[in-house]
């Protein structure tokens, strides 16, 4: 029991350290948000100007923008470590590997949540979909999606931390794994926008939860090996 509490404390400390670094270098977070906005704009140009088509596509565009920007965000969270071999230093401490993973993932989660909410708002404006009418299910979807992306992203960012060609390897490794999350999140979002006419929202959210659980467990279980000789 106390080991768990100690681990949680360590995780939070790491998350806070990352969050503080992020906030101090605030422009990095803001650039990621702007990247997402630009992506949405380009989607508008690519698929528009028919408002109905854009409204139909909105759930997909939302999650694509979140995922692409998420890759940048997750990438950066681990860059903070490579600069002075901080990750290796961290590995030397007698700290539970799971705690380190949880800490980094929590940092990633915070960024992903901000990203998700901002993109949700932008999509509501740009593609004329009713966000306010379904705000609770939408937020739940955002949270679940953010958890999954943070879990998977943190894991693969750790894998590629000192890898050659990591700018392309990180998305190349991450994105296929995220396919079910993308699918479920888009479906859930679309159902939420439409008022859940077929009652499928619950099923998709369950799938998201299952994905999140599996990925968090897998990530936490294997992250330790990375720190040892990854």
């Amino acid at each position, binding site marked *: 029991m106390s080991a768990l509490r100690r681990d949680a404390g360590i995780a939070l400390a790491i998350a806070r350290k990352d969050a503080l670094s992020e906030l101090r270098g605030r422009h990095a977070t803001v650039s990621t948000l702007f990247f997402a906005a630009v992506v949405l704009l380009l989607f508008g140009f690519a698929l528009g100007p028919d408002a109905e088509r854009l409204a139909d596509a909105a759930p997909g565009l939302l999650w694509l923008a979140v995922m692409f920007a998420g890759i940048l965000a997750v990438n950066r969270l681990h860059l903070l470590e490579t600069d002075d071999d901080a990750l290796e230093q961290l590995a030397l401490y007698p700290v539970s590997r799971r705690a380190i993973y949880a800490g980094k993932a929590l940092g990633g989660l915070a960024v992903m949540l901000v990203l998700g909410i901002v993109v949700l708002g932008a999509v509501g404006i740009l593609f004329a979909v009713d966000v306010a009418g379904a705000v609770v299910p939408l937020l739940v979807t955002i949270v679940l999606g953010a958890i999954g992306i943070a879990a998977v992203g943190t894991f693969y960012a750790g894998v590629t931390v000192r890898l*050659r060609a990591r700018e392309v390897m990180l998305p190349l490794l991450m994105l296929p*794994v995220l396919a*079910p999350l993308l699918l479920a999140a888009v479906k859930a979002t679309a159902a939420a926008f439409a008022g859940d006419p077929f009652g499928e929202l619950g*099923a998709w959210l369950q799938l998201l939860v299952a*994905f999140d659980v599996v990925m968090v467990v897998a990530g936490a279980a294997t992250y330790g090996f*990375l720190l040892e000789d990854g």
Partner: protein
Amino acid sequence: MMTRVLGAVALVAVVAATFVALRVVPPDVNQGEAQRIMYPHVASAWLAYLSFGVTALAGIGWLWKRDLRFDAVALAGAEIGVIFTAFAIWGGMMWGQPVWGVMWQWEDPRLTTTALLLALYVGYLLLRRLTDEPERRATRAAIVGIVAAVDIPIVHFSVEWWRGLHQTATIGSPDRILNPAAPMAFVGTLLGMLGAFTLAWLYLMIRRYQLARAEAAREEAARRGHLLRARIIELTE
């Protein structure tokens, strides 16, 4: 020597199974000749999944025992798995065009899952190629392989749900639904092709494993050579 025998047997089996699939078994009542593609397509898909299962298990073996031979098995599984995955997708497309009228169907969970499988394991192979130190490479590969394997059932399940909740027409037209003229012959041929391909798979796995071990030995020798040379330079300076 035994491997060579296995290879010969596999070759004969594949040729025989192909002959049966193309000339002996009657065409499907609805799908016609195109249905014959199912035999190597299904066999390839089965072996792709088997290969990646081997890769994941071998990865666990490495993490547990730290024996690089496990890593060699993992590499063999991944490379051969990618090849059979490519075959499965190709077969699926060649079958899809005459039967569905299109080479690709988003609603088919097997096709989309297999495409994702390809992406996952090409990524795996690239990751390996970009890492030079053997132990680090083995560890990175192992955990990526495990996560990829864990992802596959989720992918399959979610695509099936995706298809199920889609309220439009079923895949293709009903009159193209599989209807073997001789069901027993169909099953028999499928199993025969599967068996033949599995023998070929086993042969290829063994050879690829041997290749991996040979290359690992060379890598190790080169590394020791460098160390030795560096040492000599140190001592003579």
